[in-house]
């Protein structure tokens, strides 16, 4: 018994040791959001990931935080993260310069159900920086286009200046087999796109209720309205998948910081089929 416990402890300790990654590139997306490309700092490659998973990124001497992987899952040489600078630690992370070394643990967590979505239409609904964990799913679908039905991407942000991956969105919108719509809450006269909340985009989209899988990521309040709209349009709760977020610490289901009802978001989530968490979703205390 003591041997097993010691083994478990050793396993846990190893899981908490970060690999070393070197920042290869930092790209400014918006005034407060940056995309970092991280390559292995040693001969040891960084682990591959599934779309929707996250890493624990360590700014040495400051602390560690969970960040969704936003790059192409096929690209093995680097991991890409899009980070919004909202606090001391994220500010430190986005101010890393090419060549700086950070710690990388993971990838962790559940992923978007892209296997189960094969043969169906895929509806992607993102708000703000919520597009970041969905981008790997879009890369995957575009790379395996014949495996999926229609690809619909609906993306909302506060203003045109807050849209991330703007050039890429324009490229996706030009694809013949994808419907990509972006909207902003308010815009100036230079913005010729849609103005209004992301749920307003549903009127431009024809959904096939039993033939569509929806992948949703954004602030919880946005996801709540999106789910209402989708249920009104006949989509089944089991076909709605959402990415949740809570404060995480260990990333491996050990510390309990990210407990959400009976789940730990880091290991049972962050992506859940809506029907599994609907009784907890929107609860004030959670």
């Amino acid at each position, binding site marked *: 018994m003591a041997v097993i416990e010691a083994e478990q402890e050793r396993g846990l300790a190893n899981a908490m040791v970060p690999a070393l990654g070197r920042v290869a590139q930092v790209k400014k997306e918006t005034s407060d959001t940056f995309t970092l490309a991280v390559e292995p700092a040693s001969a040891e490659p960084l682990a591959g990931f599934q779309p929707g998973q*996250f890493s624990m990124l360590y700014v040495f001497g400051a602390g560690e*935080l*969970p*960040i*969704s992987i*936003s790059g192409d899952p096929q690209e093995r040489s680097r991991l890409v*993260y*899009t*980070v*919004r600078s*909202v*606090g001391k*630690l*994220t500010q430190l992370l986005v101010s890393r310069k090419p060549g700086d070394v950070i710690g990388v643990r993971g990838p962790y967590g559940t992923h978007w159900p892209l296997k189960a979505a094969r043969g169906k239409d895929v509806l992607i609904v993102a*708000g*703000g*920086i919520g597009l*970041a*964990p969905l981008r790997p799913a879009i890369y995957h679908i575009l790379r395996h286009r014949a495996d999926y039905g229609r690809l619909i991407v609906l993306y*909302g*942000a*506060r203003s045109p200046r*807050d849209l991330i991956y703007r050039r890429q969105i324009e490229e996706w919108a030009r694809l013949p087999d994808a419907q990509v719509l972006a909207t902003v*809450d*308010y*815009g*100036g*006269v230079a*913005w*010729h*796109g*849609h*103005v*209004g*909340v992301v*749920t*307003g985009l549903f*009127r*431009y989209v024809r959904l096939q209720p039993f033939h569509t899988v929806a992948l949703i990521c*954004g*602030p*919880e*309040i*946005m996801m709540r*309205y999106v789910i209402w709209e989708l249920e009104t349009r006949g989509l089944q709760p089991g076909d709605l998948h959402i990415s949740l*977020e*809570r*404060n*995480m610490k260990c990333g491996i289901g050990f510390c309990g910081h990210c407990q959400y009802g009976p789940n730990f978001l880091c290991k049972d989530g*962050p992506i859940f089929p809506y029907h599994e968490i609907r009784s907890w979703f929107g609860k004030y205390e959670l």
Partner: protein
Amino acid sequence: MTIENVTDTLREHPFLQGFRPDHIDKLAAMASEVRFGKNELIFHEGDESSFFYLLLSGSVALEVPTPGRTVRVATLGHGEELGWSSILPSTHVKQFQARSLEEVRALGFDGERLRHACEEDYSFGYALLRAVLQVVASRLQATRIQLLDIYSPVSSKA
């Protein structure tokens, strides 16, 4: 556009889903096809409400001009209506300005004629005001969501 074409177009317009055929006919008799070029001001803020439009193609931005800048607060497109306030009493003035973002095709209705038709035929009036109320409710809801500033909440995981 012939009256038959107008009737067919109205029958398929999302705003009029559930309208009785005689109500559609009544609207068709009042409709006139209108077109706006790109970047044309359809009405100004403060204009007395006059025309009610059902959009057939193109898109329209609702804007609020403020000193130094103009803010776009909503866009409307095919299948939507523009100018619901023209159905209200004539003291009502436009609260936004509307600008065509591309070439726009619409069916226009004189607000005063619509109000008269509602007074003369309560069943038509009820159907029209119910449809308008649905639009107003959804715009109110959208405005509330916009006020919530739903994209701004911040947390540790991107």
